[in-house]
């Protein structure tokens, strides 16, 4: 099969993710999917903004009572760095250096897990300290849905990258799996894009009221 052909760094094409028609299709299809995801998250953001701080009674915690800068800052740094490490991974993918690519992907995954851990801690904190839950108010529903959708995307991204790493651990790079790695990395960047807006719109703007 042409797709499983072995390469050397010299013969490896410049844009391996788009070297085959299948790769080209996947590349474009995935970008279109991200266009749709943009609207999906925009709808969630819109709903969050509409329902921000709308609680049934004044004893419920509001955005400015809940959020704390240090934790959010830490989470932001983790996710931003993981975005850079996945860029490194793709750099090595394009240079046909499978080992280094796997290493950087591994670091990306670890950072992703750290982020997820923080998020779980954060949610747990809100639920127990402030009784701010999914069912306590419309604000709670909107907050957990927006941030939780992002968290679910992170989880899916992690599982995806791990599955790719394990599946291809033995056989290395070829034109069949190069697009898959590339798309997983695009997805990971997109998660970061969404997070940039979450930390700005939800947390920073929530702090100022």
């Amino acid at each position: 099969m042409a797709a499983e052909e072995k390469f050397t760094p010299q013969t490896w094409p410049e844009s391996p993710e788009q070297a085959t028609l299948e790769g080209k299709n996947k590349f474009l299809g995935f970008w279109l999917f991200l266009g749709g995801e943009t609207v999906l998250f925009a709808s969630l953001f819109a709903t969050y903004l509409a329902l921000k701080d709308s609680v049934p009674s004044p004893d419920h915690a509001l955005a400015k009572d809940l959020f704390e800068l240090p934790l959010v800052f830490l989470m932001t740094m983790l996710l931003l760095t993981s975005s850079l490490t996945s860029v490194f991974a793709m750099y090595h993918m394009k240079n046909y250096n499978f080992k280094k690519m796997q290493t950087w992907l591994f670091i990306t995954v670890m950072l992703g897990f750290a982020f997820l851990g923080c998020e779980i801690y954060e949610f747990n904190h809100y639920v127990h300290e402030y009784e701010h839950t999914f069912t306590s108010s419309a604000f709670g529903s909107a907050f957990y849905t927006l941030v939780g959708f992002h968290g679910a995307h992170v989880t899916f991204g992690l599982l995806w990258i791990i599955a790719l790493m394990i599946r291809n651990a033995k056989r290395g790079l070829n034109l069949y799996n190069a697009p898959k790695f590339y798309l997983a990395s695009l997805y990971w960047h997109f998660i970061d894009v969404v997070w940039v807006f979450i930390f700005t719109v939800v947390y920073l703007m929530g702090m100022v009221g």
Partner: protein
Amino acid sequence: MANLQTNSGEPKVNYEYRRKKSAEEMRMQVVTFTMMIFFTVIAFAAVGAGFSKWFILPFVLLLAIVQVIFQLYYFMHMSHKGHEVPQFFMYSGVLVGFVTVLAFLTIIWW
């Protein structure tokens, strides 16, 4: 080898050139990353320092938009050629999303 998109007849030269080009791009991306971290720190600092609300809101939003543009154009390679269609659809998505957010900020309560 129909897959190989070579510009020069000499694969070796082409290879060297590509290595160099992607190394350069990598440097660019590290710079981008540094700037993104920098913007993030400023945004958090602005909120932490307790400036006026009407300064902070547009300021952090602007920083977020710049960051996202960096992410899209450098990390996700939208600046490369062959990304015209992705650009078109991303911008369309952003437009629809923007209209949605605008509506939810203005005509949800009456």
